[in-house]
């Protein structure tokens, strides 16, 4: 593209490359942002609340919704049965006889899976209605670890995925067998990469409406793309794409990939709107988000390398087991294949063997998350580099240097098919060591170690892919299956520039920003083309599939904005400028190619006095279309579609150029591990980026710093963790820990620029790289500090102190019998004692009297006697932030009147479930005085179990204490004084 006209501002260099203030900020800083929950809704809009499964795996035996439907303000209740009538299954990511519903139909497969939706006049009423929905579950055994899911006799999630295996593909590139046979060393690592999620601070939101006359849906959602999902949603709603208008709000409160995962909820809320006959709005709450939004995949990897004596890697052998959670919903298993072209990282390794398996487990389904597949690949790969160095007695830097792709090899085709566009990895690495003061870090380590402290240094070199090939995911199919399915490839970017009758410029893109400042950068790019100021350009980034130019690759993911979308805007603007130049040439009596666009004017440099105002020229198409030279198209509006030719479909050898651009990152850091606590302190962190041409330095710094903070969380704190029974253990932000300003240290950011030859502006993506490099860089440093070979994320103090001091011995049991919890369930147990002013016989009678029980069981509303020794009750209990209603069933057994009795029972509610038993003994200590002693054991699951064990233990003691206190009060015919109640509580403590 050789422009034949020139644009210039007062400053020759132009606006691109400068940190201009963001146009987005003034409104956001003043509280005038327009996020989805800030926008008005049509009159009559109803609000939805979602009932979710407390079980990891269970069949749904019955859902009773009559009581909920009858509640005030409730308009409709949607269950799986209605959903099945009005919608179709979502697309499954592989070919298999499996369905994937956005809401449970007759079986739940993870904690948090939607089971019913209540639609009411406001959200408070909708949540009230959830309490009245009764679901009867028959729990099934669950499986949570990917290797366990493949084991014999593992619980099966889907009949269509025998052995829980959804896909199993093997690949071979070069001659891995030969390389492994002849190499002097074989060195490997085993990694269980944990789950984490980027948790944007704004949660999901959907407003949906259905027009029965047109059989069309209109949806507003803070969805981020890719818009290939539009086709998935339309299909699930059983309408053609032109009957699904999908719009996004002007602002979105962060995404990092996560807001791709709102799409199953778009289907659910759209169907709820159809059922209710009114618009329906749903704003996800944080606990729903943590349990039911989306997670990155966890992956179990065994990576082996054939290594030469000098540390050169001759071949890699990857064995990856990807855990996509309970459903394999499109675009998964994309996380596993996004890196397929980059499985050799920044290294020139010609022989590669890969086995990729995808399994399903009883956990939240996975989807896009910042880094998407990168952290799972680079953790084993860069741990391997460090293991090779340790095994061969080499400096890890030497191992990196000997394997890097050489500078003269670009563009470099990797063994697995990626075309690395540009770079000088070795030079960037040396620059990082020099400018990042690596030598002083070595000195700090030496000194710390001399003082007996645990200090380590870690390194990581990664290639950061951006602008995904829409066809990479088809690598999961065999070449024959791909031929049958037809080719998929490319990465269409679109941009539209409009000139209005006043000559003002607007830009429309389908980029759906989530805080990255797209409007500012586009204004810079287009201002440069037209010789205007960015403030004069209006940029619209909210998306409307009914009116905008878009394609399946539209949206905000795979760091495609700067390399692709900004480039498309430049192309559209340049085309308009060429037309305008030809019109101006006639007016100015000059050649079009000599005209300059600068400072709001168009003129020929030889005669700047003879100029035409840009706005006047730009309005020509509106006011005087007849005056246009014959062969000039109307300069009104121009849409550019841009797809890079380098992104072809995977070939028959399964080679795929999975991404267009490849940035390079080299990180190193120094950490100190506290010998007593195992806490990691980051002493210094240096990150070197080659992200091609930098369009806005301030925003690039922002992306790098933000990505680093995410990565730091993944390295040190964050894990979306499940107990072995599938209970979610990280259901609140008090359990799922996100770094705060206290944990994120200052970062040293360095740049080395090699512009991409494949993108219009020479830019590459930059927002994801640190999520790939940082976790393993820190882990390498911690391994160096501790001198250990084996290290897993997150690097929690408890885990590291185990490496330092050995495993902690289990605490002494406070009672002889072990609690009755299944492995992994949250077990509670305790015992206590209370004295009551009543005879044993009197107490005994009370225990068998439902009315009296209703008065003494904390929170009980409605106690019914179901049989001689069986009771049923409704109980409201609040534990920490989780307050809910439960149905309790209690049975008395081993009755030895009036001396002892066993109470066993279960509770079940939307927020959790539990079962337990307790033995109660009554001993007279006087004619009207009895000593009660008791012990209990219980196991709980569901949301209550996810709020944290300390809270639960304490709450159980308080509740049981309350029970005895009010039993005593009833027995002695009065309410005890506060003082006595406290005393009894204390005495009743386990």
């Amino acid at each position, binding site marked *: 593209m050789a422009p034949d006209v020139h644009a210039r501002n007062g400053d020759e260099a132009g606006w691109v490359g400068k940190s201009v203030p963001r146009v987005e900020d003034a409104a956001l800083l*003043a509280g005038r942002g327009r996020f989805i*929950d800030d926008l008005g809704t049509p009159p009559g809009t109803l609000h939805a609340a979602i009932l979710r499964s407390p079980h990891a795996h269970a069949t749904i035996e019955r859902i009773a919704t009559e009581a909920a439907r009858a509640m005030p303000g409730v308009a409709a209740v949607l269950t799986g049965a209605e959903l099945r009538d009005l919608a179709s299954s979502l697309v499954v990511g592989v070919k298999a006889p499996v369905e994937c519903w956005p809401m449970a139909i007759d079986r739940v497969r993870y904690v948090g899976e939607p089971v019913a939706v209540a639609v009411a006049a406001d959200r408070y009423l909708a949540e009230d209605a959830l309490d009245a929905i009764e679901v009867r579950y028959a729990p099934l055994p669950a499986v949570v670890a990917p290797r366990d899911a493949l084991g014999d006799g593992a619980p099966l999630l889907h009949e269509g995925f025998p052995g829980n295996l959804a896909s199993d593909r093997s690949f071979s590139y070069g001659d891995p067998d030969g390389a492994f046979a002849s190499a002097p060393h074989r060195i490997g690592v085993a990694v269980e990469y944990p789950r984490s999620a980027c*948790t944007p*601070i704004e949660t999901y939101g959907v407003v949906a409406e259905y027009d029965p006359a047109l059989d069309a849906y209109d949806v507003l959602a803070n969805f981020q793309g890719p818009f290939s999902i539009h086709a998935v949603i339309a299909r699930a709603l059983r309408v053609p794409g032109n009957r699904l208008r999908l719009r996004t709000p002007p602002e979105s409160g962060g995404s990092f990939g996560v807001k791709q995962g709102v799409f199953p909820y778009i289907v659910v809320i759209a169907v709820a709107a159809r059922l209710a006959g009114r618009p329906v709005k749903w704003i996800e709450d944080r606990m729903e988000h943590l349990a039911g939004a989306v997670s990155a995949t966890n992956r179990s990897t065994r990576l082996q390398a054939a290594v030469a004596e000098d540390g050169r890697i001759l071949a890699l052998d990857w064995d990856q087991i990807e855990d996509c959670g309970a459903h394999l919903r499109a675009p998964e298993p994309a996380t596993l294949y996004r890196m397929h072209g980059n499985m050799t990282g920044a290294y020139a390794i010609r022989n590669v063997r890969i086995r990729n398996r995808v399994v399903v487990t009883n956990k939240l389904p996975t989807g896009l998350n910042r880094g998407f597949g990168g952290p799972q690949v680079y953790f084993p790969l860069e741990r391997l580099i460090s293991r090779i160095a340790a095994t061969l007695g080499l400096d890890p830097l030497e191992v990196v240097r000997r394997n890097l792709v050489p500078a003269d090899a670009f563009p470099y085709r990797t063994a697995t098919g990626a075309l690395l566009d540009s770079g000088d990895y070795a030079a960037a690495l040396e620059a990082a060591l020099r400018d990042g003061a690596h030598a002083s870090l070595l000195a700090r380590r030496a000194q710390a170690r001399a003082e007996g402290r645990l200090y380590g240094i870690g390194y990581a070199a990664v290639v950061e892919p951006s602008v995904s090939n829409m066809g990479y995911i088809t690598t999961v199919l065999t070449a024959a299956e791909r031929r049958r399915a037809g080719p998929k490839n490319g990465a269409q970017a679109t941009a539209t520039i409009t000139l209005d009758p006043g000559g003002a410029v607007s830009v429309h893109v389908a980029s759906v920003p989530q*805080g990255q400042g797209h409007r500012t950068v586009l204004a810079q790019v287009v201002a440069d083309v037209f010789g205007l100021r960015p403030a004069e350009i209006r940029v619209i980034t909210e998306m409307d599939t009914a009116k905008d130019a878009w394609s399946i690759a539209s949206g905000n993911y795979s760091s495609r904005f700067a390399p692709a979308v900004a480039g498309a805007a430049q192309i559209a603007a340049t085309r308009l400028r060429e037309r305008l130049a030809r019109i101006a040439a006639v007016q100015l009596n000059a050649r079009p190619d000599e005209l300059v666009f600068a400072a709001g004017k168009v003129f020929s440099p030889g005669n700047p006095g003879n100029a035409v105002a840009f706005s006047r020229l730009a309005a020509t198409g509106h006011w005087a279309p007849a005056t246009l030279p014959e062969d000039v198209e109307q300069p009104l509006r121009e849409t550019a579609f841009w797809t890079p030719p380098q992104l072809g479909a995977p070939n028959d050898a399964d080679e795929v150029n999975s991404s267009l651009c490849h940035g390079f990152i080299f990180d190193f850091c120094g950490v100190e591990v506290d010998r007593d606590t195992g806490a990691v302190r980051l002493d210094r962190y240096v990150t070197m980026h080659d992200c091609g041409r930098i369009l806005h330095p301030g925003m690039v710094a*922002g992306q790098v710093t*933000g990505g680093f903070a995410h990565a730091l969380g993944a390295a040190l704190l964050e894990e979306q963790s499940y107990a072995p029974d599938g209970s979610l253990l990280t259901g609140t932000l008090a359990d799922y820990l996100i770094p705060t300003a206290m944990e994120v240290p200052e970062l040293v950011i360095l740049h080395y620029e090699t512009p991409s030859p494949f993108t219009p502006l020479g830019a590459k993506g930059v927002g994801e790289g640190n999520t790939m490099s940082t976790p393993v860089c820190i882990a390498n440093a911690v391994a160096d500090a501790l001198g250990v070979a084996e290290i897993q994320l997150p690097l929690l103090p408890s885990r590291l102190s185990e490496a330092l001091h050995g495993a902690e011995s289990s605490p002494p049991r406070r009672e002889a019998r072990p609690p009755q919890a299944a492995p992994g369930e949250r077990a509670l147990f305790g015992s206590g004692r209370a004295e009551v002013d009543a005879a044993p016989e009197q107490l005994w009678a009370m225990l068998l009297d439902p009315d009296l029980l209703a008065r003494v069981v904390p929170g009980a509303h409605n106690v019914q006697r179901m049989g001689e020794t069986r009771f049923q009750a409704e109980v409201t209990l609040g534990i920490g*932030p989780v307050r809910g209603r439960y149905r309790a069933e209690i049975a008395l057994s081993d009755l030895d009147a009036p001396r002892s009795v066993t109470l066993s029972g279960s509770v079940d509610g939307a927020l959790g479930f539990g079962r337990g038993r307790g033995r109660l003994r009554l001993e007279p200590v006087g004619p009207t005085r009895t000593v009660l002693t008791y012990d209990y054991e219980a196991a709980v699951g569901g949301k209550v179990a996810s709020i944290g064990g300390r809270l639960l233990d304490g709450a159980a003691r308080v509740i049981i204490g309350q029970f005895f206190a009010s039993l005593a009060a009833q027995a002695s015919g009065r309410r005890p004084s506060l003082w006595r109640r406290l005393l009894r509580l204390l005495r009743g403590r386990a």
Partner: protein
Amino acid sequence: MSRHGPAVLDAGQRHPVRFTLNGRTVSGEAEPRMLLHDFLRHVLGATGTHVGCEHGICGACTVQIDGAPARACLTLAVQADGAEIRTVEGLAPAADRLSVLQEAFRTHHGLQCGFCTPGILMTLDALLRERPDCGEAEVREALSGHLCRCTGYAPIVKAALAAAEALRETDHA
């Protein structure tokens, strides 16, 4: 906290709530269980205050109640009756002008998506008023009650320190 003395509130009923919001008296009706952020956003239409967790961790909902930062998600609307409340909408001195703190956020890229920003501004605004000489440690400590997923905090710290300095200079001028 009600200024009208202890009142008996009925769970099923709406009760009048009246307070000062950014210097103006506002009123509406709320059931006792309605949270302050819902009242601000959906009854009064003041949507600048955001909600990120509704369980007191993220800080997005932070407003100032009688001058002190407080979580709107842990406050009932009826508790705010009679109080003086300030939200992000009250920070700018004029519709076309930003406060020193807001301006510092813009200059130092202290925001990306801007969703956490209103709460952070309310905490920092109070901090800079109470502790004009605060340094980095104090700023970080105050920020530790907020979660931001976009910025990595460094630019927010920078913006806060720059604002503190600018405010000190104008005070001395």
